[in-house]
């Protein structure tokens, strides 16, 4: 009976889901059609003659390659630094009992709740004082700091899943904590580390507001900021090129997301982040 009931409910559930899915796809159609339409406006229409003109127009070192390279430096640097710092921090928190552990973890959790848009004004002030404005490495340091609270939580959860007994053999052989970490623990949590890395990478790649405030010279700006030169500056908007650029800029994170979702499962990655 239950299976029959389930089957009867399938038709309406399918229909409702497809309707919702269509609503989610509609706003994206403009991006796809517009990118292929040499005369695109912000209307959605099938291009009269599909062409790759827009793509070849933006495919220059100035417009596309340098901003993407800057995005890569920013995201790669931030993700590497974040994972390294998070692994170091998570190891003692996961392996040694201390009365600092719980208060530390909960104050870190509070840090994840800080709205980054709110601290950009003081951070700008701080960067002016320390003469760090318009510096890629300093921006990487700041973005790593904002990503760290969540990254430490996720890394610790992944590390807790590796049994301590495996390290004890290494300790008996006289290996120090950090040697055991490198030789025993890290290889076993490779997949978890991949999730954290990609999670931070995607977040940084898509971030507009932070580099918009902290990086001033066009030669240092990532794609999220340089994309603005297609939009709104002098009224004349190159819609087709904007769409083409948007797609080229989005592809890397879409690919990375698919990697995580395949390898670890979207909900699994999320439970690492959400559970206490």
């Amino acid at each position: 009976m239950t299976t029959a009931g389930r089957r009867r409910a399938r038709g309406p559930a399918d229909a409702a889901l497809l309707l919702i899915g269509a609503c989610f796809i509609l706003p994206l159609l403009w991006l796809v059609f517009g990118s292929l339409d040499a005369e695109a406006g912000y209307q959605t229409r099938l291009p009269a003659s599909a062409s790759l003109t827009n793509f070849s127009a933006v495919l220059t070192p100035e417009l596309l390659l340098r901003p993407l390279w800057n995005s890569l430096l920013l995201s790669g640097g931030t993700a590497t630094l974040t994972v390294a710092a998070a692994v170091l921090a998570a190891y003692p928190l996961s392996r040694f009992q201390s009365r600092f552990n719980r208060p530390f973890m909960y104050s870190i959790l509070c840090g994840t709740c800080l709205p980054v848009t709110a601290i950009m004004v003081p951070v700008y002030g701080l960067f002016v004082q320390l003469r760090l404005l318009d510096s890629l490495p300093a921006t990487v340091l700041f973005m790593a700091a904002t990503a760290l609270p969540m990254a430490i939580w996720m890394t610790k959860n992944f590390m807790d899943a590796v049994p301590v007994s495996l390290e004890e053999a290494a300790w008996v052989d006289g290996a120090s904590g950090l040697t055991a970490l490198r030789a025993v623990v890290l290889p076993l949590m490779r997949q978890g580390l991949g999730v954290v890395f990609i999670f931070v990478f995607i977040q940084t790649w898509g971030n507009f507001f932070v580099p918009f405030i902290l990086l001033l010279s066009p030669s240092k700006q990532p794609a999220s900021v340089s994309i603005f030169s297609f939009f709104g500056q002098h009224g004349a908007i190159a819609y087709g090129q904007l769409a083409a650029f948007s797609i080229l800029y989005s592809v890397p994170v879409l690919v990375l997301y698919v990697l995580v979702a395949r390898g670890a499962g979207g909900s699994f990655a999320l439970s690492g982040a959400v559970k206490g």
Partner: protein
Amino acid sequence: MGERKTVRQQLRLLPVVPSVLLILLFLAAPVLWSFHASFTNAALTGRNARNPAWIGVENYARLLSDSAFPASVVLTIVFVVASAVVGQNLLGLLIAGLMTRARKPVSAAVGTAVVAAWVLPEIVAAFAAYAYFSKDGTLNQLLGGAGVAGADWLYAYPMVAVVLANIWRGTAFSMLVYRAALADVPQDISEAALMDGAAGWQRLVFITLPLIRSSIATNLMLVTLQTLAVFTLIWVMTAGGPSNASTTLPVLAYQEAFKFGDIGYGTAIATVLIVLGLVFGIAYVRLLKGDKR
């Protein structure tokens, strides 16, 4: 001997130091600086940029008398409640619920569509939403096709447009949380209730929802905090306009600090936002702690 042991124990905590330094310098210090600067007349340029003076609670007094501030508090609440608490949360639950009943390929395809809007870089999503709600945009084309005259959404109903855009952008998160939660609900309880003749809505209200209570609470807290900080979407779509009709607190803080160069006043607004975030954060932490017991 005992002393040496505690020293060694404390040395073990050494690897935490890099993280702590980064967080102290780039998160804790700006928050403290924000509290301090909100009591000064610090400016972006000019004399007050070099030597800001202490002006006490003047910025906060100005906040209360400036009509833009209470208005933007109201707009922020409307934005958070309508797009996160109601929109993303309920739609995410609905989609996750439908997915448990629908055919596998259908739920996989729709899940991908919902997640796509979420994974896209925020500025790209904002451009797409801008094009969608523009006067000649996709939405009005569709309405025109159905014989309905659309409005100039971004000017006539800017809040409606940004709320809908944020629901579109953010629902994936709630959907993923609720899918994981519903997958953990034991089948046999629900089926036993079905045998006892419980209707669909009764099973939802009396069985499923109580079982996923902690996921609901966690999700509400997280989407609220994420939405509280939304800037790019609103800024690209309406820039807070027309005439402040969609200026939420992050947009107002940005305008005052960076467009008008009034850092002191901007940090006062930012401080209000930080306090709001911390209140939610502490509530969230207590919730998680309580959950464990």
